[in-house]
């Protein structure tokens, strides 16, 4: 019999694709339950202050409504993420605009708007802090009035935090004292010392489907709460289970969570469903009906999480031939008003801050500051895009000071196979950044363009340029995360029934929200078992049925969960060999024949596996050293830009993305992931700005928060290097977040190449470019007018050449 074609690297049809193109896929707002009510959230109108009074206007017959106040919460008034500082409902005090204060429900959705308007809340306002700098200044000046967050024993933050600071990390490239001494020497002996400061703005996930859930609360014959069921649009059903156990003081098995078709997430539905899910469950408890809460766009944008704004400072020592000797890096994130996931976002930022380079001596100090802004949360990349923007813009600045091309500087300093990273992780698996750089610059036509644009820019009002960014992205949970998660995957064989042949069911809590979870996990199972893709399906994500395979985040699904599916499949084959005489070399027919023999003697056929590292993975949380990630993806992205010197609009005109992500499981989905991430990254760089006023997002509409349309994006060329990794199924590594990291720095590097002016902040909008050029005194400056070395934003120390 001929060998069936490999399913790894094939592109079978997306499992749920047919329902999606038919419009038949059912998202949360498409679901109605009998007797269902609708819920709404009454939110704070100020950034910080005491709630003085809440008045219900008597124009409304409030007996028709269910109202939930903090005192109605049966368990703790807390949304638990990493710690417990985030109230489910503000109780007497608000810490950010749009903070939930009350919940109301009514059978008619239309009746909610009028009722919300009839609730009047009065406050005694207090001063707030709205930026990293304001938050720092409050601490430094000892301004007690503006200390808006303090560590708290009861909340579990006492050991980590300090005033206005959720968490700090210190990463040393070796033993602390030795590294400090090494750094002192490096800076003393350096031929060049280059400093720079880089900042990034908040970014809205802007999934096209807003957050939404439907909750039910079931009571026993005595009227006591027996159990809850919440279904909704989400990434991590077990996060919501955990949140519900705290809010309702119920055991886990009484808090059932079901994920329904989810219309985009990107991290925006990682931590936030714990909030909206708890809210809907409280309303269901109160009114005795199922309750649906679906936000409209304005509420979703104003009230839910965004990417953390950041500020990164670099101080770098180099030898006269451009070798990196040492660096001091400081990363600061704006975490918003409560801790939520900021410590883990900060950790990923810290670990990615050094970029893909060799550092003899390095120190990273990082901190997540509290501000009176709605809590920032998970967004694809999770701290890495911020940190990598810093290092990759800085490397271009360093190159200029040292007198090397951006390309040559990086070539001299790239990490190589077998090197040890700054956390002490040996890079066992083969990769070659130099070869990748050569390949992608050629694919892009980089060198030819450099020369041509330099010539054309002399006379053209459109300045063109090219730039690139080199980076890495750790796949899987940071540090000891995967060990702690202890993820489980179950495979079950379903017996043939009248209308349905026997099939294999994959039971995971890993959710599908467009990335292709259903498809790739089916591929892995089918490939490993030697059966057809159509023989495998994923169980509906229902925590009453599926085990906890961990959250669907951190580029971990393909690599970590995929490997678990592969191992569970191998274990299933082993079971069938042991009990049902499955031959060593088997195919689809012999596999299902063996399952039939198994069922003749057994009721059920299931296998279960738990996470085991595929190579030594050890992380020391105290020392902040060890294997930071099971595996890294490596990438180099090249951008071509055009800056119109009449309108000051920068446009990305071509993009090449080359990455080494291990074996590509599904080329069509993988390309789609990269292209989609690059598009979000282009938006992050030159289109998407959150406008803030006293902690409130002012442009919380799609009309004034500008994400790229089909007309705004360039051709995005995706290239893969495939070096199989031991960590993932069939050699795959994580891919999902990676493409978010590169576009920001690549595009700003290209804009510097085009205009001769270096910009250090994203988003970079036409008004920013305009302002910079007018401040330079060149209203309609051609490139010859701009002194390439002028640099107002940060200080570059003059090269000091040692003897």
């Amino acid at each position, binding site marked *: 019999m001929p060998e069936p074609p490999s399913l790894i690297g094939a592109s079978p049809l997306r499992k749920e694709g047919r329902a999606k193109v038919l419009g038949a896929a059912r998202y949360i707002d498409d679901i109605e339950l009998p007797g269902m009510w609708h819920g709404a959230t009454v939110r704070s109108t100020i950034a910080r202050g005491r709630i003085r009074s809440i008045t219900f206007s008597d124009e409304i017959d409030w007996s028709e409504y269910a109202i939930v106040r903090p005192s109605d919460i049966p368990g703790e008034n807390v949304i638990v993420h990493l710690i417990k500082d985030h109230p489910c409902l503000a109780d007497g005090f608000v810490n950010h605009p749009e903070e939930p204060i009350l919940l109301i429900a009514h059978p008619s959705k239309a009746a909610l708007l009028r009722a919300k308007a009839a609730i009047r809340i009065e406050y005694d306002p207090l001063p707030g802090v709205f930026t990293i700098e304001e938050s720092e200044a409050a601490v430094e000046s000892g301004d007690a009035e503006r200390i808006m967050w303090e560590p708290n024993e009861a909340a579990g933050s006492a050991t980590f935090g300090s005033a206005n600071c959720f968490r700090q990390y210190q990463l040393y490239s070796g033993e602390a004292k030795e590294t400090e001494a090494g750094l002192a020497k490096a800076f003393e002996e350096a031929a060049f010392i280059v400093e720079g400061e880089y900042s990034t703005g908040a970014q809205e996930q802007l999934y096209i489907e807003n957050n939404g859930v439907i909750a039910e609360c079931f009571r026993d014959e005595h009227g006591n709460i027996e159990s809850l069921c919440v279904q909704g649009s989400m990434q991590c059903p077990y996060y919501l289970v955990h949140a519900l156990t705290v809010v309702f003081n119920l055991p886990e098995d009484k808090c059932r969570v079901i994920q329904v078709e989810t219309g985009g997430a*990107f991290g925006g539905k990682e931590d936030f469903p714990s909030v909206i899910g708890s809210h809907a469950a409280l309303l269901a408890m109160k009114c005795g009906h199922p309750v649906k809460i679906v936000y409209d766009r304005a509420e979703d944008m104003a009230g839910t999480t965004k990417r953390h704004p950041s500020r990164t400072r670099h101080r770098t020592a180099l030898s006269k031939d451009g070798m990196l000797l040492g660096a001091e890096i400081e990363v600061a994130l704006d975490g918003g008003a409560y801790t939520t996931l900021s410590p883990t976002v900060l950790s990923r930022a810290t670990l990615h801050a050094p970029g893909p380079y060799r550092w003899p001596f390095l120190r990273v100090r990082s901190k997540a500051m509290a501000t009176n802004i709605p809590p920032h949360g998970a967004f694809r990349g999770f701290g890495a895009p911020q940190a990598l923007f810093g290092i990759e813009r800085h490397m271009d600045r360093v190159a200029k000071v040292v007198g090397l091309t951006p390309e040559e500087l990086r070539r001299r300093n790239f990490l190589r196979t077998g090197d040890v990273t700054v956390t002490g992780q040996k890079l066992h698996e083969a990769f070659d950044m130099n070869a990748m750089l050569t390949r992608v610059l050629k694919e892009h036509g980089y060198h030819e363009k450099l020369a041509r644009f330099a010539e054309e820019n002399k006379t053209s009002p459109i300045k063109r340029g090219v730039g690139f960014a080199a980076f890495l992205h750790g796949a899987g949970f940071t540090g000891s995360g995967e060990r702690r998660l202890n993820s489980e995957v179950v495979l079950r064989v379903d017996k043939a029934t009248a209308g349905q042949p026997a099939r294999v069911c994959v039971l995971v809590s890993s959710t599908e929200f467009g990335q292709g979870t259903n498809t790739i996990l089916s591929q892995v199972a089918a490939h490993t078992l030697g059966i057809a893709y159509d023989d495998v399906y994923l169980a509906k994500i229902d925590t009453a049925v599926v085990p906890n395979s961990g959250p669907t985040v951190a580029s971990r699904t393909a690599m970590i969960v995929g490997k678990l599916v592969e191992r569970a499949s191998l274990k299933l084959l082993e079971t069938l060999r042991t009990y049902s005489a499955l031959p060593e070399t088997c195919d689809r027919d012999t596999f299902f024949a063996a399952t039939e023999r198994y069922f003749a003697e057994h009721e059920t056929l299931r296998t279960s596996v738990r996470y085991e590292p595929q190579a030594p993975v050890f992380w020391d949380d105290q020392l902040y050293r060890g294997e930071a990630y099971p595996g890294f993806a490596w990438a180099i992205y090249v951008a071509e830009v055009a800056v119109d010197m009449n309108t000051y609009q920068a446009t990305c005109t071509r993009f090449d993305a080359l990455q080494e992500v291990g074996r590509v499981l599904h080329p069509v989905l993988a*390309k*789609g992931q990269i292209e989609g991430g690059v598009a*979000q990254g282009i938006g992050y760089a030159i289109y998407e700005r959150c406008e803030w006023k006293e902690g409130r997002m002012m442009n919380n509409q799609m009309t004034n928060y500008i994400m790229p349309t089909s007309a705004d994006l360039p051709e995005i060329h995706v290239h893969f290097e495939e070096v199989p990794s031991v960590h993932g199924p069939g050699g795959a590594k994580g891919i999902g977040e990676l493409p978010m990291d590169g576009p920001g720095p690549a595009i700003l590097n290209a804009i510097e190449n085009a205009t001769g002016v270096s910009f250090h902040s994203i988003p970079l909008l036409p008004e920013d470019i305009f302002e910079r050029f007018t401040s330079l005194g060149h209203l309609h400056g051609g490139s010859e007018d701009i002194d390439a070395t002028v640099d107002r934003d940060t200080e570059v120390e003059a090269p000091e050449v040692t003897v």
Partner: protein
Amino acid sequence: MSTIQITINGTSQSLDVPPMKRLLDVLREDAHLTGTKEGCGEGECGACAVLMNGELVNSCLVPALHADGASVCTIEGVAPSAAAEGEPAHLHPIQQCFFENGGAQCGICTPGMILATHHLLDKYPNPTLEQIKEGLAGNLCRCTGYMRIFESVQKAAQALTTIST
């Protein structure tokens, strides 16, 4: 309440609705066709796009009264045998091409995107890339970066031209 006469996916019906109710809600709540999605509620994202008398409209901006007498095609009416009972047997070539070429990821923009494609290919059976970009610029997709969608549209154009010749 007003009574409007509206033909949805070929079936004429009479509905009693508030005159200013959004066509989007009429379709979802009164006609129970939930394939049309709400993304922004202000005509920016195109998730709610439908064909009304052959024109592409954002149904969140159309008052019910304005749709009186109109013929509306929603995603449920795109596949050839979209009858009331169950799933249709065959996908429309546009749907098939989105399915095969990675044109749908999370799927929430997909109904509007497919109707926009339908409209585009009615106008330009062999569209250039520029025409595709412009034709779909009113439909936002946050997942794909549009590249797979462009490819889906190009493949659909080929498939439809092959069928019609």
